[in-house]
C-alpha cells in the first residue's frame, strides 16, 4: 500500500511518541532492554499503523494478520506500540515489569490474551510462525492474510531458527514474511564477534528464502520491501532490516552495552531523562515541520 509524504510524517511522529513511551516505561521499571526496542520502533510503527490487518477494538478478530514476536525481550516497543494503537492505555505502560502487571518482562499471553504468543527464550518464534502459516495453508486461508515474524539477529545463533527456516522453504510458505532486526548487537557484544552471522543474506538465500535488505528506519523503503514480500509467490520472504540499536537517542545508538541492563554501565535516571529530552525535542521538530 502506497505511503504518501503526509503519511510518512504521521508515522515519524508516531514512532517518536513510541520511543518516548519506551524510555518512560524503562525509567519507571528500572530494568529492561533499551537498544532493541528503540531500534525497532520504526518497524513496529509501520506495521501497526500501515501494514497489519488488525482491529484494536476487536483484538481477537479471526481474520487478522498474525504478528509473532520471537525475541520477546524487546516487548517495551510492542507494548508501547499497542498502547498507541489503542489496545491498552498509556497509563498501563507504567506497570511494565511490576508485580501484578499484564505487561510482563517478557510477553505472556495468559495475562494479555490478544498477544499471538508468549516469548522470551530465543529461537522459537520463527517455527511458531511457520506452524501458523502451514495451518492457514491447510485451511485455504493463505491468500487471505499474512503471518509475520519479527526476530532478532542474535537468535540466528539458535539451531531452532534454522530448523524453522528449512520447513518454511520446504513448504514454500508464501504467506510467511520474516523481519530480521539486523542491529548487530547481542548481550556479549557485537554479533560478528560473538558468533559471526555474515553473510547473513546468503545464508537465507541458501535456505531458499526470497531475501530483501533494507534500511530499518526508512518508512518508504520498508514499506516497499513489505509490498515486494507480499507479492512473492513461490517462496517465503525474509526482510533483513538494518537498524540502529538505540535509534533516536544519540547517546545509546550503536552501543551494545545498551542491549540490556549492564551493571558495568551506570544506568542513571539522568541517562533516561536525557534521552527523553532528546526525543521530545526531536518530536517537537518533526511536528513543527509537519
Amino acid at each position, binding site marked *: 500500500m502506497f505511503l504518501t509524504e503526509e503519511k510518512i510524517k504521521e508515522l515519524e511522529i508516531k514512532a517518536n511518541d513510541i520511543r518516548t513511551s519506551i524510555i518512560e516505561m524503562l525509567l519507571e521499571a528500572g530494568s529492561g532492554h533499551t537498544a532493541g526496542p528503540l531500534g525497532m520502533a520504526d518497524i513496529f510503527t509501520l506495521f501497526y499503523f500501515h501494514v497489519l490487518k488488525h482491529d484494536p477494538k476487536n483484538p481477537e478478530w479471526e481474520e487478522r494478520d498474525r504478528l509473532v514476536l520471537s525475541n520477546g525481550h524487546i516487548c517495551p516497543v510492542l507494548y508501547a506500540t499497542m498502547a498507541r494503537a489503542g489496545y491498552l492505555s498509556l497509563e498501563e505502560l507504567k506497570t511494565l515489569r511490576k508485580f501484578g502487571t499484564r505487561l510482563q518482562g517478557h510477553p505472556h499471553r495468559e495475562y494479555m490474551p490478544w498477544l499471538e504468543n508468549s516469548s522470551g527464550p530465543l529461537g522459537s518464534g520463527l*517455527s511458531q510462525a511457520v506452524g501458523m*502459516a*502451514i495451518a492457514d495453508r491447510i485451511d485455504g486461508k493463505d491468500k487471505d492474510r499474512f503471518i509475520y515474524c519479527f526476530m532478532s539477529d542474535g537468535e540466528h545463533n539458535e539451531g531452532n531458527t534454522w530448523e524453522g527456516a528449512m520447513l518454511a522453504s520446504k513448504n514454500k510458505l508464501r504467506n510467511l514474511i520474516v523481519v530480521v532486526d539486523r542491529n548487530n548487537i547481542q548481550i556479549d557484544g557485537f554479533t560478528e564477534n560473538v558468533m559471526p552471522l555474515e553473510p547473513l543474506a546468503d545464508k537465507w538465500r541458501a535456505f531458499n528464502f526470497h531475501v530483501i535488505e533494507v534500511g530499518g528506519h526508512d518508512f518508504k523503503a520498508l514499506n516497499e520491501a513489505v509490498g515486494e514480500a507480499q507479492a512473492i509467490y513461490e517462496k517465503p520472504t525474509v526482510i533483513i532490516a538494518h537498524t540502529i540499536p538505540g535509534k533516536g537517542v544519540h547517546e545509546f545508538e550503536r552501543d551494545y552495552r545498551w542491549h540490556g541492563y549492564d551493571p558495568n554501565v551506570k544506568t542513571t535516571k539522568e541517562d533516561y531523562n536525557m534521552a527523553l529530552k532528546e526525543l521530545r525535542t526531536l518530536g517537537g521538530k518533526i511536528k513543527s515541520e509537519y
Partner: protein
Amino acid sequence: MLNPNLKLNPKIFNEDVEQVPIRKGFGQGLLIAGEINKNVVALCADLTESTMMNFFKEKFPERFVEVGVAEQNLVTVASGMAAMGKIPFCSSYAMFSPGRNWEQIRTTIAYNDRPVKIVGSHAGISVGPDGGTHQALEDIALMRVLPNMDVFSPCDSIEAKKMTLVLAKTKRPAYLRLAREKTPVITTEETPFTLGKAEIYWMPDVGLVQVGIIVTGGLMHRALLAAKELEMEGIKTKVLNLSSIKPIDKDAIISLAKETKRIVTVEEHQVAGGMGSAVAEILAQNYPAPIEFIGVQDKFGQSGTPDELVEHYGMGKDSIKKAVKKVLIRKI
C-alpha cells in the same frame, strides 16, 4: 481376581495372551480422531512408521507435517498450528521429544497454553537393543513438573487408543507416553475409561487387602502376574492402574492407602521424579504410608532384550513380589 466390573481381557493369564505394541493403539486412535475432527493434524520428526503415524499420514496427507530430524521444530511448529485452531499430535521417540526439546515445550506449549499433544514413543527400558541413549527413563518427570501439562501412560494398546481419542477433544497440552515392544493386551474395548480416573484391576476374592500396587504403563501385565502369584502364597493385594499421572486420581490413591496401609509403585522410569514420586507426594501429605518403589534406581540403561533389561533393572514380576513382601514387614 480381575475386577469383574471392568471387562478386562479374560485371557490375561494365558500363555497365548494377545500382544500388541502400545504405540499401535495410538496410531489407530489418531486415525479415528482425524476422521472425527478435521482440525486434528499430525507432525512427525522422521519416525512416522515407528510412532505409527503412518495410518494418519496415508489417510490425511494434507494434514500431516514431516519436519525431519528436528524435535525443537516439531513442537514449536505444533504450537503455531494450535494457535490457529488445530489440535496437533506430534510424535517422536520420548528420548528426543520431550527429551531434547523440553524448553520449547515449556515456553511455546505449556506457558503458551496451546493444546498440543506430545507423543513420546519408545519410552522406558524395553526399547531394548538400541541401548541407553534411546531409553527414555526421565520423561514422566520432565513433563509432570510443567504447569498446564497433563501426563498419560497407558497400560496397553486399547487404552492408548481410547486416550488418544479423548486427548483429541481436550483443549489442554498433554504428554502421551508409549512403548515400542509388544505388550500383553490387558483391557478390552468395553473396559470403561475416563481420563484422570484410576481403576482397580486386581482385587482379592475375599478377605482384607494387605498391599496396594500402583502401576503405570506397560509393566501392568507383570504386576498382575505378581498379584496372582502372591494371592496363591496368601498375600492379598489390589492393583491400581494409574495411567493418568497428571491429573492424578488423588482419591483413588488415598483410599487404596487407607485400605491397605502399604503401597508398592511400579513404573518403567527413574524412581526419582516419576509416577511413584507423584504418589509419594500425595500420601506424604494426606495419609503417610510405607512405599516401595519399583523403577530404575538412578542408572542409565544398556543394550539387551526387553525381558533381560526389565529383570536386570529390578522391574520384573519377581522384583514386584519381593517389594510387596518387603513393604509388608515395614513398620507403620
